[in-house]
């Protein structure tokens, strides 16, 4: 029972990160109809920038902030310099370009930082506090929950309640009409990329201390897990992405705890295939069978 509680909390903590990362994927998918396969690489790049700043200044928090800013800028840059110029007539094209970005970013990181693992420090202790003799959650888990809670509810508030959120939704749903109504659709798209990439960078900062550390490929498997989370929730649904992230986090934690951590990659693949073959629109989509 103790173990179950521990695995559940641990799963929710990882799941929160997957949720944020999946949310970032969904943001871009809704705005641009592109699954940003480069999001993992972009997030790692931001984390490396944070690493540089933190080692130079000795301040974790400065690095943390810089990572998010770097993520925002990188997202805007990728939209303006690359994605905007891709012919979206075939859905293959943006996917292929995103993969080119993966190669490019990972190679540049490899050239600058080498491919050995760098330590990714956690700002709070990762050893669990015990409540009534049961190890429950660590201060770091709390930090993760709080950060992601703030970000997710902040985004939800922004999209639902603010003028800029309304503009972004309108631009995503009906770009032509939105332009007629004075919405700067291109700007909203860039903002969407920036926000998504910023959230991705944040997720990387939160997940890397729980992994082997910083490495150009450090987010590859996280990306696959988050993509699975987004698919579980339905690529079009931000709340779905959050729930999907938690589901994937829990599943991986249980598999890793009860069957061995080596099996988690396989579990992700099986879950992804199962969801896509059984409920292609995601678990929360209306039942109407949709071809994906």
């Amino acid at each position, binding site marked *: 029972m103790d173990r179950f509680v521990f695995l559940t909390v641990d799963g929710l903590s990882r799941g929160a990160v997957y949720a944020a990362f999946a949310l970032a994927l969904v943001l871009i998918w809704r705005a641009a109809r592109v*699954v940003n396969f480069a999001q993992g690489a972009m997030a790692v790049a931001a984390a490396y920038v944070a690493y540089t700043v933190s080692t130079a200044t000795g301040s974790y928090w400065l690095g943390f902030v810089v990572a998010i800013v770097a993520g925002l800028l990188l997202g805007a840059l990728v939209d303006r310099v*690359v994605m905007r110029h891709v012919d979206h007539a075939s859905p293959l094209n943006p996917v292929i370009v995103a*993969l080119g970005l993966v*190669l490019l970013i990972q190679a540049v990181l490899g050239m600058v930082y080498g491919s050995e693992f760098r330590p990714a420090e956690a700002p709070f202790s990762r050893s669990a506090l015990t409540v009534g003799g049961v190890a429950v959650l660590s201060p770091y888990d709390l930090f993760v929950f709080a950060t992601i809670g703030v970000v997710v509810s902040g985004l939800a508030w922004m999209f639902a309640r603010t003028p800029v959120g309304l503009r972004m939704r309108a631009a995503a749903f009906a770009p032509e009409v939105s332009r007629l109504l004075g919405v700067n659709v291109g700007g909203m798209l860039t903002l969407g990329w920036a926000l998504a990439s910023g959230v991705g960078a944040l997720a990387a900062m939160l997940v890397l201390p729980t992994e082997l550390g910083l490495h150009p490929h450090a987010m*590859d498997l996280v990306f696959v897990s988050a993509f699975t989370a987004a698919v579980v929730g339905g690529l079009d649904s931000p709340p779905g992405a959050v729930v999907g992230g938690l589901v994937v986090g829990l599943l991986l934690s249980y598999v890793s705890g009860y069957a061995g951590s080596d099996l988690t990659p396989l579990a992700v693949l099986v879950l992804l295939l199962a969801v*896509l073959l059984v409920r292609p629109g995601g678990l929360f989509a209306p039942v109407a069978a949709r071809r994906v």
Partner: protein
Amino acid sequence: MPPREQLDDPGGRPVDRRRGSTLLRHLAVVLAAGLLLVAISYSVEPFRNFQLATVAAYLCATAGLTVLTGLNGQLSLGHGALMATGAYTVALCQTAFADRGMTGGWLLPLSLAAAIASTVAVGAVVGVAAARLRGPYLAGVTLAVAVVVPALAVTFDGVFNGEQGLSVPVEPPPLSLGPYFPYERWQLWVTGAATLLALLLLANLIRSRYGRIFRAVRDDEVAARLAGIHVARTQVLAFVVSAATAGLGGALLAVLAQSVSPGAFSLTLSLFLLMAVVIGGLGRLTGALWGAVLLVALPDLTHSVTEMLTLSPAVAQRLEGNLPLAIFGLTLIVVMIAAPGGVQGLLSRLGRALLARRPTRRS
């Protein structure tokens, strides 16, 4: 030229009524290429032989991916994993043969056949799933395959020996070729023969009814369905064919390197393959050749460049490993934005432009 035939084939070459002669023409081209390879194998140094053999192994995989992505419109980011399947199968077979003290020229073809068979099985499973998926979903699933499958070598390290990998015992060249026959030349012969055979089959497939069906499904699924084509079955078939050649390519690479490890079949390899077919020109076997050449030539080129620059060993090593990747990635982006037809597309556009100008010059 009857217009109907032109309609069938984007290249504008006749397809239907001369199928017999198409086969003959392909055979002739393959034989000529084989003779050329043999001639080359005698005239260049062993290292170049090895490089050419590597090109041939990659060509298997890029040609298969060309059929899948270019001809059938299915994106696969998982071909590196399929190559790994072939490579590990060949390693296990060859080791089993060696352990039992078996020898003979037929063992390697048998191992290669087993590699193809096992990859076909894996490809069929992925292909059945792939046939139900489109666009980013298909890309995501195959990406997951690419990331997860190499990790299985660690999961089941009892069989696959983890990150260390397995060695692939390969017999020396047959004695009938003489005692001093260079091993690299023999490698080129083996991989060249296997690749040419695979290419012959693929080229005929492309020119056959199946090739047209593949393209019909790629161009318009609904129309294809209305025309009585079984879309899902076609897509699975394309995936299986493509998997078979990828498996062969991986097996040949393992034979060349005489070892396999998960690191050699990472996500990066899958992306490389995709990049190769995109840069070469999606949907053309000649494009696959360009891609395979690039895969071998570019790292070699950057190696020479980093050697020319005087760099500290650490920096040189970082550059050497990553510069080709960066160039690949950048090229992929630029090609997709500026020239979606790839190198081969550019060449044929150039050729057509030249051809189009000739009559006016005469008149």
